[in-house]
């Protein structure tokens, strides 16, 4: 086993997936959803994306439970035979690395837009990659423990920001509900569900959880919690900005700029910065970790730490060259991200599960 540590369900199935989805989602998603679903964006987040997330979680955990103690990279060859299986494993590793590069890009895009427009993007990328290397070399336990703290900081910041702007929100902006039927709501839910589907990470993490039988419950709770949190943020953003929401890149950030209480508690963007840097660093670290772990398993290495640094270099370099500017990032998130992500989140795992059931590979659902 490459990873020696064991983590519990609360850490790895509730908090970690939350932090693997929310940090970027909470900033990008409200605006993207609003483009299609307008004032009903919160419905896309609360219902459409959550249902998708629950499906992904169900498939990932059911699949993982058939092969206790193994990650998808390890058991894919068992299901599909050595060549195709390795290919699927390699596909997942590539997907993790690519997605991580995108996350770093999103991260630096936001920091550049919001805080430090003159700093070159590569600076943020390098710092973030270095930070993630430290976490990844520490292992899953370290990421999970740090995650518990970051989770608290994240939720607290969010509550403060939303709490302080809610007094001049106009909730009539949310009406009418389902103005143009269900279709725009589902359309608006595509990108958020691609974010939510990132809980597919569980394919890689399940073997290291000490009570995998209970994981599904926690993972469901996590997905639903994400839905509620995102819907809340969207409700507040929509009722604050109305139809303007879709033209903002980072509605939550604009919300934080809005804050003015008693005339001196003003401009709490720094809270966003704290939330963002802490949250994204965990998000990057998780993806980075599963990528390194998967790569090591793909090549049958004894330890994933030697591949950690090379992957970091790839991440930093790739994130810089991926997109021209942050507008392109958003465009990619709207157009290419959903089909690309859904393939790896639901399609491939479902196929794997189907083939495994048909070929009677792996143990029973309750694991061994």
């Amino acid at each position: 086993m490459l990873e020696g540590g064991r983590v519990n369900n609360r850490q790895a199935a509730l908090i970690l997936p939350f932090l693997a989805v929310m940090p970027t989602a909470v900033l990008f998603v409200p605006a993207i959803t609003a483009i299609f679903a307008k004032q009903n964006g919160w419905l896309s987040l609360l219902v459409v994306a959550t249902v998708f997330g629950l499906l992904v979680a169900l498939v990932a955990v059911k699949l993982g439970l058939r092969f206790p103690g193994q990650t998808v990279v390890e058991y894919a060859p068992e299901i599909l035979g050595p060549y195709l299986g390795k290919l699927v494993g390699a596909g997942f590793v590539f997907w993790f690395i690519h997605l991580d590069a995108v996350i770093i890009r999103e991260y630096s895009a936001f920091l550049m837009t919001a805080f430090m427009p003159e700093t070159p993007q590569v600076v943020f990328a390098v710092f973030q990659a270095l930070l993630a290397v430290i976490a990844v070399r520490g292992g899953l336990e370290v990421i999970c423990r740090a995650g518990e703290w970051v989770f608290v900081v994240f939720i607290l910041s969010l509550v403060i920001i939303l709490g302080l702007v809610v007094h001049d929100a106009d909730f009539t902006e949310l009406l009418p509900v389902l103005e143009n039927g269900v279709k725009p709501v589902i359309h608006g839910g595509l990108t958020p569900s691609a974010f939510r589907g990132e809980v597919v990470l569980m394919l890689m993490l399940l073997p290291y959880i000490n009570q995998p039988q209970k994981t599904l419950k926690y993972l469901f709770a996590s997905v639903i919690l994400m839905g509620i949190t995102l819907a809340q943020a969207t409700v507040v953003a929509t009722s604050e900005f109305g139809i303007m929401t879709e033209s903002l890149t980072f509605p939550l950030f604009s919300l934080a700029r809005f804050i003015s209480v008693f005339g001196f508690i003003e401009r709490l963007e720094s809270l966003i910065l704290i939330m963002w840097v802490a949250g994204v660093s965990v998000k990057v670290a998780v993806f980075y970790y599963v990528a390194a772990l998967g790569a090591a398993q793909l090549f049958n290495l004894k330890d994933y730490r030697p591949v950690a640094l090379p992957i970091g270099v790839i991440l930093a370099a790739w994130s810089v060259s991926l997109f021209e500017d942050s507008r392109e990032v958003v465009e990619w998130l709207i157009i290419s991200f959903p089909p690309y992500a859904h393939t790896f989140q639901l399609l491939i795992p479902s196929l794997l599960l189907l083939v495994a059931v048909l070929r009677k590979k792996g143990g029973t659902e309750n694991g061994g």
Partner: protein
Amino acid sequence: MFNRAYRKIKKLLKQNKQAGSGDGAGSAGQQPLAADLGRNIQELRSIFERCSDVVMRQLVINGEPPVDAFLVYIDGMVDVHLISDHVMRALQMNPALVPRNQRLTGPDAFSKIKDSFIGVVGIKTTSDMQQLVRQVVYGDAGLLIDGVAAAMVINARQWESRTVEESNTEPVVRGPRDGFTEKLRTNTTLVRRRIKSHRLKMENYKIGQLTQTDVVVAYIDGIANDKVVEEVRRRLKRIKIDGILESGYIEELIEDQPYSIFPQVNVTERPDKLAANLLEGYVAIMVDNTPVTLIVPVTVPFLLQSSEDYYNRYLYAIFVRMLRFLALNIALLLPSLYIAITTYHQEMLPTLLFISIASQREGMPFPAFVEALFMETVFEILREAGIRLPRQIGQAVSIVGALVIGDAAVKAGLVSPAIVMVVALTAIASFTIPNYSASFSIRILRFPIMVLAAILGLFGIMTALMVILYHLCSLRSFGVPYLSPLAPINFHDMQDTIIRMPRWSMFQRPQLVAYKDPRRMSRGQKPGPGRQDKGDRGDA
């Protein structure tokens, strides 16, 4: 490259170790005593050659016939009164006063002297010259008798030591005033007086080939985690060194993560604090010749706790601990926040405050970072000077430093007034951290964070904090996660971290260290009027 250097060093160390062990084998070997006193004396004289503090006394015991004897001890390490009153006088007693059947004769003289003549409790025999020498350098007196191939080792150890005083580094307002001294026996007594139980175990080790320093591992049997105790034993036994002069030597040799900036062993000079920790299942390592005692395992909340927190009422303790937590953050972050905000994020300040700071900084020659770095360095120099100087001058230095340099620097236009306040606040805040070695970490960490703040603003500070968080999460102290119970979260153990629950609600010991015997007191002892247990206070 680093790896290669490391391997080379390892190789060198290996050679060294082999050489060292060869040396050690010579001194640890056996060498039986001779029956002939003259030969033993000759041997002892050659061993203690040029040791001017060794007293060797030849004497004659009044027996029938008189027996030659030889006493050897180190001056200053034994109680001379005890030797003269209870050893010398007994041996040189007028034979006429002794009943005929009890007089010393030939072969059984040795056991008779040992069992019925010498009035000292601690007396042992040895037949090994090396053992005798070891005991003598330890402070025992050795007594040899002609015709017997054995020696008596009389425990009459006594040497000068400081009296029990209040610890300088951990003063309290409420609570006991005694602190550990340099004498190990006094220290163990101070603890034993607080925990009068046979379950308080004190295992003895001797570490240091030359210094032969006594090290005591103390723990409470049945509460302390056996694995931790075993790990402490294992790590202590691994130490091969010529000398241990302070517990810091041991601390550095038993740490889990030697490259970390954070202390992984808790230290205290207070017996009450040590006793409280032992009761919670921690393990203490007490070292001779130093008042500083080590406690393992340590977790981060520990570094913010003072023993006084448990003596004052809990609300006050919670208040003080939160204050300390705030002060910790100020000590770590305030200069960097100042740099980051004045350089990159001016919009975060209220407009009036920003204008005031900006007008102060008008015409200043250096950027905020240089100012802060300059003042912080000046302060660290002053602090170091204050410790090194004789106490009376130390105060003068701090006054000169604080008032004269600070004021003059502002007047000379070198730094802005705001930074003087920032540095002063940082300095005062850093003194609130109760644990001395933890405050070192904070002091050192402040500088890299300042650099990051100067380069990247708030983002840099946040990155630094995340690095620290990841690092803290990866640390372990004797198998216990360093950040526990905060991460991994253990809600039960949170009763005694940043907050301190009232004593009647903390009826269980911390789960992570004392899971063997978690119960500290019985439930339901919350006091109040009319609350009486059946039978207990019923007769009042």
